[in-house]
């Protein structure tokens, strides 16, 4: 009899994906807001504010992907073909924006600035489409994906794609409020105000659309007594939104960032509540998708040793680069 470590792996996977969304979310948001900055100095400061940490943030994408392959291979094998093109666009977008951090200092700065912006927008949109496709449910036949390569192109998935652009834009703007000062900070605050309402709109739209379209999700949220047990989720979300607006109004510096992250956290929690225990909505659960106990056990040893170190190091690097950035100074070039 071996210990069932499937829930542990589900937790690790959920943590990895959430870390990725939060961390790469705000630096993708910087890329989304990039061309709208007041001036070139502002753009340099924006770039400098995420330059030392962005590739550490992307580490979580790879860890999430490989953890899924190793611990829940059936989910990996079913979900990836369903989002073949969104994954392609995400990877290419991330590559262009990644190298733009350095190549813009060499030649053709304008070109690489465009690459940074559009790479971020495309990657974010693609991630939103992946999310939308996932929530809508992935058709499965036996152990393979049963749909076509363009099934992701639905109005709902396009909505979540746009929603994620606005969402990452919001946490990017809130990050800038925390990390910059003066005119750039004022600009970021005004953008954050607008984007906050945009995010509220998208959260509202998705929250109405999903229970209407997905009977499983409707049953999960509105069946008694779930309605009562889960009622804090929308209440807390609303409270966080109010906190975000108030902290923007009262010109707080770190609070908007925390509030927007917490808002993302609630959305993620809401998604989790909607689909658990499914890993491929709405047909394969965590246990069905699991690799063998021998595989999961072999990997858990190394993960338990190395993952805390990677997390501690991530925290430390944020600590090292705390404080405000400017265009020329700080830790830029």
């Amino acid at each position: 009899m071996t210990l069932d470590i499937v829930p542990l792996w589900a937790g690790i996977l959920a943590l990895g994906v959430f870390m990725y969304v939060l961390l790469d979310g705000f630096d993708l948001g910087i890329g989304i807001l990039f061309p709208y900055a007041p001036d070139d100095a502002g753009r340099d400061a924006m770039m400098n504010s995420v330059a030392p940490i962005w590739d550490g943030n992307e580490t979580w994408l790879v860890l999430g992907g490989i953890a899924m392959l190793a611990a829940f291979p059936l989910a990996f094998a079913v979900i990836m073909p369903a989002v073949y093109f969104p994954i392609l666009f995400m990877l290419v977008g991330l590559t262009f924006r990644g190298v733009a951090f350095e190549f813009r200092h060499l030649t053709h700065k304008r070109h690489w600035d465009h690459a940074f912006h559009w790479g971020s927008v495309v990657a974010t949109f693609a991630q939103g489409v992946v999310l939308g496709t996932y929530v809508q449910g992935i058709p499965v036949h036996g152990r393979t994906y049963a749909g076509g390569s363009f099934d992701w192109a639905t109005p709902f998935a396009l909505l979540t794609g746009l929603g994620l652009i606005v969402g990452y834009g919001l946490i990017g703007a809130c990050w800038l409020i925390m990390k910059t000062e003066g005119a750039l900070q004022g600009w970021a605050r005004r953008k954050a105000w607008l984007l906050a309402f945009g995010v509220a709109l998208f959260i509202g739209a998705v929250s109405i659309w999903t229970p209407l379209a997905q009977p499983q999700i409707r049953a999960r949220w509105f069946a008694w007594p779930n309605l009562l047990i889960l009622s804090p989720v929308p209440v807390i979300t609303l409270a966080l939104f109010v906190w975000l607006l108030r902290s923007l109004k009262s010109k707080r510096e770190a609070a908007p960032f925390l509030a927007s992250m917490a808002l993302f956290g609630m959305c993620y929690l809401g998604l989790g509540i909607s689909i658990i225990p499914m890993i491929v909505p709405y047909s394969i659960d965590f246990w069905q998708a699991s690799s063998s106990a021998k595989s999961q056990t072999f990997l858990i040893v190394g993960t338990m040793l190395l993952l805390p170190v990677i997390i501690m190091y991530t925290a430390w690097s944020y600590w090292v680069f705390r404080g405000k950035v400017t265009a020329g100074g700080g830790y830029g070039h």
Partner: protein
Amino acid sequence: MSFDAVLLSRLQFFWVVAMHILLPAFTVGLASYIAVLESLYFFTRKPVYLRLSRFWLKIFAVSFGMGVVSGIVMPFQFGTNWSRFSDATADIVGPLMAYEGLTAFFLEAGFLGVLLFGRSRVPPWMHLGAALMVAAGTLFSTFWILVVNSWMQTPVGHSIVEGRFFPDDWLTVIFNPSFPYRFAHTVTAFYITTALVVAGVAAYHLRAGRFRVEGVTMLKMAFGLLTILVPVQMELGDLHGLNTREHQPGKIAAIEANWETQSRMPLLLFAWPDERAERNIVEIGIPVLGSVILTHSADGVVQGLKDWRPQDRPPVAIPFYAFRLMVGVGVLMLTLVVCSWFVWVKGHLGDSRWFLKLCELAAPLGFVAVLAGWVTTEVGRQPWVVYGLMRTGEAVTPSLSASDVWASLAVYIAAYAAIFGAGGFFLVRLLHKGPAEAEPAAHARVGTPARPLSAATEAE
């Protein structure tokens, strides 16, 4: 041969791996070279080693960064294009790949930042330690990836239940029959690749009359290593070949374009294989030598392709020529090494113009050999993705159409051309600048972890 989703997915995998492999082929050796330079500087305090280490660290930072960026793409290929392979083999392949990721990121998180940015912020022994750890980390990465590849070539230590592979014994899986040979052969190839680049860059600057001390030091280090490694590599290649003949005889038959099982097999130098007619239309060979090389005996029997059903045979022409390209390049390398002895003995290592020119021309040879060897082993494994057990055609994602993969392949080709073009331009510029004494950074850096590319721009 039709351009269906299987063939196009193979071409796509070839493209993203071929572009990616160029970077580890260089950075694995370079990390070790930097560790050696740092050790030499630590113990001798000769400034030339410091200047060289600083120079190559910049090159390393850019190459490593591009390796990371292009490496992210590959695990996703497993899911998007090879989902049935993933479903069937992930119980074995998944944890091994995850260990590669964990150890690589652990290393990157812990030591790369210190190596690139920590020289003035940590004690010298700690900086040297970081250099050694980064070098070890690149070898860990190579280790795990080659474990996966070798298991796919010579699968053992598993059981198959309903078409899926489950691990029985991890040590047997990891140390599968072809792994030790593949690992030794590949790492040696990576070291040789780096040494040839170092020699070529040194020669480039020496011919232009620049960086005399640094150039001669680099040449001596490069040819010191090549003198040992090139002959060793030939011996390792021979052992790897014997191992392949034992475990993947069909691959050997294709490499030699050998249709009939025979003793006293000739070594073909040129052949025009006709797979349909099951013979070579034209062939030029040396009698008996094939048996001697493959069995170390003139009467040794070598299996021919006709021993396998046509649908179980690999393509013949590609492994045949890719193998000859690899061996031919190896012979060129050996020639260069022998030349270096004569020049070195006469004391002209730094100023024999013809020799320096040869070194410059030879700089990319390692990459050619690595790619050729990789093509030989991968095409020679066909039609299997897990040798003898799972066909490549059964591994592809069933929902993909040929036009889907045409579209994605076109995007990958365009994107990589742009990014590798820009990166190559960047690298050439850094190499051209040479090991000039870097200006101390004007601004105070607080230390930049996990951000390899910026180490190069820091000195711009």
